[in-house]
């Protein structure tokens, strides 16, 4: 290594990996239901889609976590997006493609994708 630029390149590459170990989860949380029902309905590709989208975007302060069964198994895969100071948004019957849209429009754009939410599914 002969320059600071090389050092910074390694730092940027590693930052997300190490930052996910921070104890203060103040930022946005994307929580994927990963109980038996969720996994059976296809939650794993959804989870991976979110993880890749977050890592690829370089956005900090967003964590992707998993949780157990929320109790609405008929709507799995279920994803919750929790932003500080805002109401929780619950997405249902998710797929990897839908995950990408949620990431682009909601996480990055700040506008929830209403058509995927539990509210519109129950109508």
């Amino acid at each position: 290594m002969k320059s600071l630029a090389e050092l910074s390149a390694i730092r940027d590459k590693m930052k997300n990996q190490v930052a996910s170990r921070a104890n203060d989860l103040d930022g946005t949380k994307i929580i994927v239901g990963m109980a038996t029902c969720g996994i059976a309905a296809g939650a794993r590709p959804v989870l991976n889609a979110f993880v890749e989208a977050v890592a690829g975007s370089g956005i900090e302060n967003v964590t992707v976590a998993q949780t157990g069964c929320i109790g609405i198994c008929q709507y799995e895969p279920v994803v919750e997006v929790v932003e500080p100071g805002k109401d929780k948004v619950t997405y249902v019957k998710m797929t990897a493609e839908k995950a990408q849209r949620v990431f682009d429009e909601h996480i990055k754009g700040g506008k929830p994708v209403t058509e995927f939410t539990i509210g519109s599914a129950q109508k």
Partner: protein
Amino acid sequence: MVRSTVLICGGTGCSSSGSAKIKDKMVEEIKAAGLENEVKVVVTGCFGLCALGPIMIVYPEGTFYSRVTVEDVPEIVSEHLLKGRIVKHLAYDETVKDNEILSLNDTAFYKKQKRIALRNCGVINPENIDEYIGTDGYQALGKVLTEMQPQEVIDVIKASGLRGRGGAGFPTGMKWQFAANQPAGKKFVCCNADEGDPGAFMDRSILEGDPHALIEAMAIAGYAIGSDQGYVYVRAEYPIAVQRLQIALNQAREYGLLGKDIFGTGFNFDIELRLGAGAFVCGEETALMTSIEGKRGEPRPRPPFPAVKGLYGRPSILNNVETYANVAQIILKGADWFKSMGTEKSSGTKVFALGGKIKNTGLVEVPMGTTLRDIIYEIGGGIPDGKKFKAAQTGGPSGGCIPEKHLDTPIDFENLAAIGSIMGSGGLIVMDEDNCMVDIAKFFLEFTVDESCGKCTPCRVGTVRMLEILDKITSGNGTLEDIDKLEELCNYVKSASLCGLGQTAPNPVLSTLQYFRDEYVAHVVDKKCPAGVCKNLMRYVIIEDKCKGCTACARKCPVGAITGTVKQPHVIDAEKCVKCGVCIETCKFGAIVKQ
């Protein structure tokens, strides 16, 4: 793509309780579950809560699993990692509240801590330089080499108020300034990693958990004083620390962060390891440098100070591991940031190794000025089994005992000295009502008698005489004059010894004499040990009213010291009794007591 990280503590404490096997099992189970591309297992340095080891933390949730066993691993993998259900019954009790899992930072142990020196311990993999770089590692070195003059570096360290964490609290920036002021030529940057105080292990944890922080800081120091060679003097008794440090040195060289022409700036710096053979005196700076030179580790008079004439007769600086661990952070975040923590004369934080009669044994880092009460009761969880606090011992064999009335003293270098102890390297041993203070003083003095290098008479002979008096007192043959003589001798040894070892050796005796003189008096006047520790002063007695005359104790006594007729109170013959305690265990009526 990694979505979850499992951190397993690979510090000495957790390693000895089997964390390596847990890691192997974890890797195996994750593979069996097909999660090897999604879950990363990282072995880290010490988390600090050693009492609860082996420790495992799963991120991003931050779930804290304590006392993990190999048998627990399949459940954690199938429930938590596969299905996202936190295994509540394995999580640390304090993090499970009303069915919710709290963040580790919300537990009493971590809430009041402020981690700077320990910032990466338990967070990154110490054997992977990329992870250190990922937490802004080596940015400070880059900054000083490309943007700052050596004098500017020294000015920042001076302005930060950083003082030596090894015990004496000498201002680090001043030390660097002295060495920098010497004419150019060969100079040395040394690190004291010869952590020898009984019960202290903060330096070990930094070496094991964040070795690159030390390497980076030493290179910065090298640039500041104009040196191209560093030495780390580390105890051979720290095999994991030595191994990780060696790995870290190799990685830093491979990346060109050590060696020639670092960052293309023309600055050269490299570090060598020197293993200490376990002599306590080698923690003293002149003895340490003599030992690096390959000679017998003995101190020499100062001046000349090492900054003028140190290793190989050249200007040298010596700082402690924890001191170095603060340096890169100060460069990156500024002197004002560091000064904003702690007290006026002692800025920043201090790491303490909590031990003795305390619930949460482990490592804590708190801002200077935190009270002992907060450290012991809030962070440390208080004294186990509802026992009463008696004293806190800081500074190891060079320090003193602090009684309850000083528990609310804000801890910094000046305040601790004012109440007869020293900061020392940060060992903090808590004692309760079952500890005899005369016995404690004797324990530490036995240590210094063993470790005295023998070069100067006050330390070599004086400490032995002091120990003889303490022996006399604890065996019940002491007189009041002995206590006075002991005190006088302490003051002679303190003022006449050559180096810090002898000068501070009387501290445990002096501070216990100051605060617990009544216990010494009880030993010599009443011939009693109030805490029931000193065997020669202890008597086993049968309480007449409680004894039913069942003869159980008399039948168990190995020396036949208990006599009496059936259904009549028995008696113990103190002459024959060997104080083995079998009778107390045997008695069903609680009729036998130690006095």
